[in-house]
């Protein structure tokens, strides 16, 4: 008999039907939204340039959640954490969705290899495809790194690594469900140290490639950490929302207690702060140094059109949630906590939107149905994949050796 069966008897920890059904709904909604976005994008008459910017936002949004999940799984093993055991499976689902997220990235091959828009913008999405403008020579010097073929191969490499990591850790977890022997958990722990290193390197490079190279003349050494900080905020918000969803729909009633939410809330708060710290460090150093080659990137985001978004980010991604999540009562009141989790996910999306879309046109705020529908579509497809993965599988690690400690722990 599994530990969970003893400790959580009577709890609903598995549900084939509902996940299947939600998978189908999400697939349908996502597909329709995306199709509508493509149509609207074609209507723009810009060779889908706007659509692909919007697509990148949505795509990096789901990718960051999936990567955040992978990070969560690795780091729980690394620190031998017991508080998070019952939540870990939810993160594991997002971690093994990484191959599916990779597949969602295939449309980005089009802006990578097409010749539309190359003459005027340098590329439909990444302008280094055809270096042009005042920095042409500088950008051309980066050709050994920034060229479509190598870029595509790198992406393939990142996904291979992430998929391998995700599958390795999750397989250990699934194996543990079937046995009392703690060997799989021990194995996962052993690999977590290597995993975190590989994860750090690939995530950094992926952030440089996908987002930083949108302005190929610009560079910031902290950018990988910045993207990582946003991803971690996203995964904690995501975990709070999925756990709430599971519990409100009658599952995992005893497996997840208010103590777990309290801890998730604390981490959400901590990483809101961490994100603010990293974002401030990046901004401050460029503001103070005041070197044109660096400040141009922020200048683009401080035009009349984009300044409100920048302020929205400062207030909405840092100041307001910081104040909102400060109190312990907030973290233990699930409705309020759920509100802040949803808020942070939206703000994380705004963050990515702020990273990507000013490159399209820094004079005008480009926001409309295309952006909303594309991201909604990608989230729909992502959720569909997640639901399919989760369908029929146990929602908590049934036999994790630290499960008793997890259920016992209390915040002071």
């Amino acid at each position, binding site marked *: 008999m599994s530990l969970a069966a003893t400790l959580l008897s009577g709890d609903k920890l598995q549900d084939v039907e509902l996940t299947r059904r939600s998978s189908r709904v999400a697939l349908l909604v996502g597909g329709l939204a995306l199709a509508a976005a493509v149509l609207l994008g074609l209507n723009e008459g810009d060779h889908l340039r706007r659509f692909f910017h919007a697509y990148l936002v949505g795509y990096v949004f789901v990718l960051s959640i999936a990567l955040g999940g992978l990070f969560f799984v690795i780091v729980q093993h690394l620190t031998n954490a017991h508080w998070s055991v019952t939540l870990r499976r939810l993160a594991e689902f997002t971690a093994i969705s990484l191959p599916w997220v990779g597949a969602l990235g295939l449309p980005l091959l089009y802006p990578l290899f097409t010749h539309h828009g190359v003459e005027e913008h340098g590329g439909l999405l990444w302008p280094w495809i055809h270096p042009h403008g005042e920095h042409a020579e500088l950008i051309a010097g980066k050709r050994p790194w920034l060229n479509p073929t190598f870029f595509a191969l790198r992406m393939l490499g990142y996904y291979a690594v992430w998929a391998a990591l995700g599958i390795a850790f999750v397989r250990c977890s699934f194996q543990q469900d079937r046995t009392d022997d703690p060997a799989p958990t021990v194995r996962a722990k052993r690999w977590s140290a290597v995993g975190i290193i590989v994860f750090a390197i690939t995530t950094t490079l992926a952030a440089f490639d996908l987002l930083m190279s949108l302005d190929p003349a610009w560079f910031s050494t902290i950018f990988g950490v910045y993207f990582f900080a946003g991803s971690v905020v996203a995964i904690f918000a995501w975990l709070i929302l999925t756990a709430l969803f599971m519990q409100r729909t009658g599952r995992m009633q005893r497996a997840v207690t208010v103590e777990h939410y309290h801890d998730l809330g604390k981490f959400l708060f901590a990483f809101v702060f961490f994100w603010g710290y990293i974002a*401030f460090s990046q*901004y401050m150093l460029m503001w*103070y140094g005041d070197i044109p080659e660096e400040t141009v990137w922020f200048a683009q985001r401080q035009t009349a059109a984009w300044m409100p978004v920048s302020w929205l980010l400062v207030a909405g991604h840092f100041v307001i949630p910081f104040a909102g999540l400060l109190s312990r009562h907030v973290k233990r009141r699930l409705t309020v906590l759920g509100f802040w989790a949803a808020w942070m996910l939206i703000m994380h999306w705004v963050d990515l939107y702020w990273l990507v879309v000013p490159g399209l046109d820094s004079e005008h705020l480009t926001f409309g149905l295309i952006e909303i529908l594309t991201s909604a579509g990608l989230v729909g497809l992502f959720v569909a994949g997640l639901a399919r993965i989760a369908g029929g599988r146990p929602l908590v690690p049934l036999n994790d050796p630290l499960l008793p400690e997890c259920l016992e722990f209390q915040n002071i």
Partner: protein
Amino acid sequence: MSAEPRLYGVLAEFEDVDSLVAAARKVREAGYTRFDAHTPFPVHGLDDAMGVQPTILPWIVLLCGLIGLGGGFLLQWWTNAVDYPFVISGKPLFGLPGAVPVAYELTILLASFGAFFGMLALNGLPKWYHPLFRVARFSRATSDRFYLVIQGSDPFFSPATPEWLASLGASAVETVPEPDEPDTPPRWFKGLTWIVTSLALLPPAMIAKARFSEMQHPRVHLVKNMDFQKKFKAQQASPLFADGRAMRPDPAGTVARGDLDPTSTLATGRNPDGSYATAYPLAVDQALIERGRERFAIYCATCHGLDGRGDSMVARRALLRQGQQGTNWVPPADLTGEAVAAQPPGRIFETISRGRNTMPGYSQQIRPRDRWAIALYLEALRQAQAGLDAPGDKDNQEEAGR
């Protein structure tokens, strides 16, 4: 006064945490309010058993933090943008990113003070004296035993309380008297306080005295090497030269840039042939007369008086001293008189420069151009007193020009 010492309370000792928590719960349920547990470490669950209300400390900390945050921004804005606005390295006088670190640190500093001092204040610490310290067994409260104390002042306290407390699983129960000792500080302490206070008043008194009195001694220079640098300033003494002066005279035979040719009419008052110049070697205009009047008032009127007739405060006072301590005063000449009027400007110039009779030369006090200006002004003064036109007037312009 009864011989019976006043009662502070009753102390019960427990061997382990469980019996302490259980007993604390029962004490609370019995209605006692003035009781406390004393443990070597924080026992979790005891707050709940004792009914300890959550502390307001977080609010104090929040308030202090906000004061730090606001104060930090205010401090930087006021000092750098308002009180002493100063542009440095092209930064705005008050830039939000640059003001964040200090405001942030002050937030944490003040919040930490709030946490620490707030905790002390709420706990009534420091309190070095406590009746419990007089109980020998209580010394284990900070090591390995657990205690429950019900104060005698509790409204529910009764003579039966100690017995009842013993029945709750205590390993020992004892009553704690309020020690019978005075709470007034001893005389030596009062004396010490007075001495310290008096000594502390001494420096302010000295400062006050220094503020309102004259001093013979120069100020104390704390930073000597900055206040006195290794350089010579004007009119300082120098050990390098025989005459002990830091300022050096011009070497013989040199003329400083912009100085006059010492042989010119402008510098001597004489024409090249040795005769006195009869015309002014300068452009004669209103400004020169004004200049002459000003210089005359400074240097000449001292003795000759503002009207040039020799009636000045110095002359009057010198005459009063005549004969005393070698005073041998000769009244100054009347500059408006005929004798002076007959002299050409060059001669007046020479008189000012070199002196004449008892008058000393003023060449080191008055610049050559100013001497000419004074000579010109004398002419104007005279003519004004005689009701004539000033030499700068149009009619005389050509005549006066060189």
